[in-house]
């Protein structure tokens, strides 16, 4: 059976928003940062603070996100940030192409330049700007309106319900993973004891991965049978839940569209918003 995230009704600004507004606003921010390739901290920082504000006013309890947040921090800092710092890749070519003072060297003589350091900071901030908009969704958006939200944005019945199921697949996968983990630990299996090379380590994960994948496959087939038996997809369906935009939704939608258009206009119209290292940062190291 599919389960849901730990959604809890709260009387907050975020939860009073139409779910479509939140999805569209998120899309606007992502597109604003990626399509015109915005790397300028003067654009990214304000967007980061907007995202942070929306995250904070969603009033999610620490106990709900105490697992996902550290995971997100590790992912962003150590994978995205460290990659940016060491290689300077994953962004504009000017990070590595334009000469920049070397601050120090690491590992086998990999130069850490001022430009790479600034790029890593920028990349981390960009990622958090997007992540902070996504993390509250499972905890603050009623799972009963996942499908309705996509339907009312113009998606087909099948796509809308697929999105509904997909949202609930992740916590179901997590639950099955925990049960399997317990079952294998009871047979003496210890994650900490993964030894050997990469292939050997992956092989040692098989006792966890295979049962969970099998469970997921079975669950998928069961859901399909259950939906078939109740005539899903045979004709246009009625979606009982209705959604209505309120003035606050129009405000946030307007802000989202303005951010997207603004970023495009500044970047393509005025050539502002691309990557550069500000002088105050360079001066810190020379």
């Amino acid at each position, binding site marked *: *059976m599919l389960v849901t995230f730990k959604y809890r009704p709260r009387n907050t600004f975020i939860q009073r928003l139409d779910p479509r507004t939140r999805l569209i606003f998120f899309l606007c921010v992502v597109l604003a940062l990626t399509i015109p390739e915005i790397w300028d901290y003067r654009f990214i920082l304000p967007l980061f603070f907007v995202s942070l504000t929306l995250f904070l006013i969603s009033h999610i309890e620490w106990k709900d996100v105490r697992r996902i947040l550290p995971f997100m921090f590790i992912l962003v800092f150590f994978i995205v940030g460290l990659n940016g710092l060491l290689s300077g890749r994953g962004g504009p070519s000017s990070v590595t192409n334009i000469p920049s003072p070397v601050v120090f060297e690491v590992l086998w003589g990999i130069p850490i330049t001022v430009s790479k350091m600034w790029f890593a900071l920028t990349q981390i901030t960009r990622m958090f700007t997007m992540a902070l908009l996504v993390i509250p969704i499972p905890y603050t958006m009623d799972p009963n309106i996942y499908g309705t939200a996509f339907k009312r944005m113009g998606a087909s019945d099948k796509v809308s319900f697929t999105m509904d199921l997909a949202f609930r697949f992740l916590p179901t996968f997590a639950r099955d993973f925990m049960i399997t983990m317990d079952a294998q630990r009871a047979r003496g299996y210890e994650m900490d004891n993964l030894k050997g090379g990469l292939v050997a380590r992956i092989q040692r994960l098989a006792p966890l991965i295979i049962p969970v994948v099998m469970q997921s496959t079975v669950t998928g087939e*069961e859901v399909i049978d259950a939906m078939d038996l109740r005539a899903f997809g045979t004709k246009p369906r009625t979606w*009982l839940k209705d959604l209505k935009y309120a003035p606050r939704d129009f405000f946030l939608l307007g802000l989202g569209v303005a951010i997207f258009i603004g970023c495009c206009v500044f970047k393509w119209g005025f050539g502002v918003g691309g990557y550069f290292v500000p002088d105050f940062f360079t001066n810190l190291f020379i």
Partner: protein
Amino acid sequence: MSNSPLIIDSLTFKYRTRPELAIEDISFELKQGELLLIAGSSGCGKTTLARCINGLIPRSYRGERQGSVLLNGREVAEMQIPEMAQMVGTLLQDPERQIVASNVFNEIAFGPENLGLPREEIVSRVDQAMKRLNIEYLRERETFNLSGGEKQKVALAGVLTMNPSILLLDEPLASLDPASAHEALSVFRSLADEGKTVILVEHRVEDAIAIQPDRMLYMEEGRIKYLGPIRDLPKEIDHTKVKLPAPWVVQRVKALDPVPESAPQPKVEESSEPLVVFEDVDFRYGDEYPLILKNVNLTINRGDLIAVLGPNGAGKSTLVKHAIGLLKPTKGRVLVEGQDTRKMSVAQIARVLGYVFQSPTHMLYAPTVKEELEFGPKNLNFNPDDMAKSIAESLSTVNLNGFEEYPPLGLSFGQQKRTTIAAVLAMRSKILIMDEPTAGQDFANYTHFMETLCKTSDGRESILSANFASTLFITHDLDLAVTYANRVLLFGDKHIVADGRPEDVLKDVDMLLKYRVRPTSLLHLNLDLLGKTGRFLPAESLAGFAA
């Protein structure tokens, strides 16, 4: 033409992927308002027959079909799914498999929404279905937080909103505790009384008989072995293949006039050594969550064969997860062979205590049975010789010799279950803990499974007593406790409410009912004859004592 809601004529089906026929030459007809019970062991063709009736065959499952299935005079294979869904409502074996929405109202409305009905019509149908099943109070609840019985009712309400004339109930009691199963059966009976044609596919025949089905269809190897009234069952059906009420078994055994087999005496060691000790254990998942275990005190001794009974959600699995160290007490302590589990890793405890999870698919992963059995011993650093010896003995113990190179996930459910037991046996743990060891198995299979584990022969010890110092199993099946256990724990209200010999704990019928354990005919008969027998016995063994 007959106006029967369902006519099946000479129906034969073979799955595309299998060489043998799944069902063969099935013919019967149902009247409106009739309640038909379909029974038979796993693999006898019940589910295939159900799929032919609800149209999943030939739409979702391909193969060769011959004969006809007529719903209200129309061939199933020629009907569109929306039409069929409004004629046959299917309740799947596990309500969890049927529920697709995250909230009760959405779940019940799912079918009518798919039919594209007007909103007012959908809301009206949902309200009626909830009222019919007395579940209006669940309207806004999340589906995954419901109890097993509530999920069953919500799934049934979702079926009823399609207004089907035929209800096809595929082993609907499988995941319910006894009291919830009884409530569900009462609802099925009343639906038949209101004019719905009800097809109840169920191997818990004894429970199903209580609602007086009009007829029973018994299948073996894809064919109809018996189709007729319930009253002739004791004469027609082998009681070792279908669970019949204990008095019927006694009557049948007497009529067959065999020498009743003497039941093994469950062994109790008086001066036993404590293996696991719970001392004033409280447990909750976090400060903000309610207590799940409260002041639990328990000692598991050498020689114990313990059945743990109690309602769904009472905390039985939480209790045993403390023993293996997967959970640590919030207050109090759990000692395994004198050591506090807080100071031991799960892997260390696994050397002492083997835990078989309810679902084999959560454990099995290896490409062969042999590799599956090697997993535990390797984790515990057995040397190769000891491991090979241990695996060979384990396979032999659960009768899986010759299956070493088979893929475990390709085995039958019963064989998978035995593979999981062998996997724990191979670790040479002292204590065996099984969570619902018979769940998902039909009567013949689970009786064979338990007999294999518990039975003594030729003066030799049973598999359990020869290999484990102590065994504990969680079960909803009261008759397992009556037949196989030497000690019963009744769990409820977050703690152990009764602990003792089966004959002492299970005689308090009122207390059993209070904790949703419904006394069975076997228990009643045993209680009636306890003065003569001195202990609980299986139904066959009671034949020699009953008048």
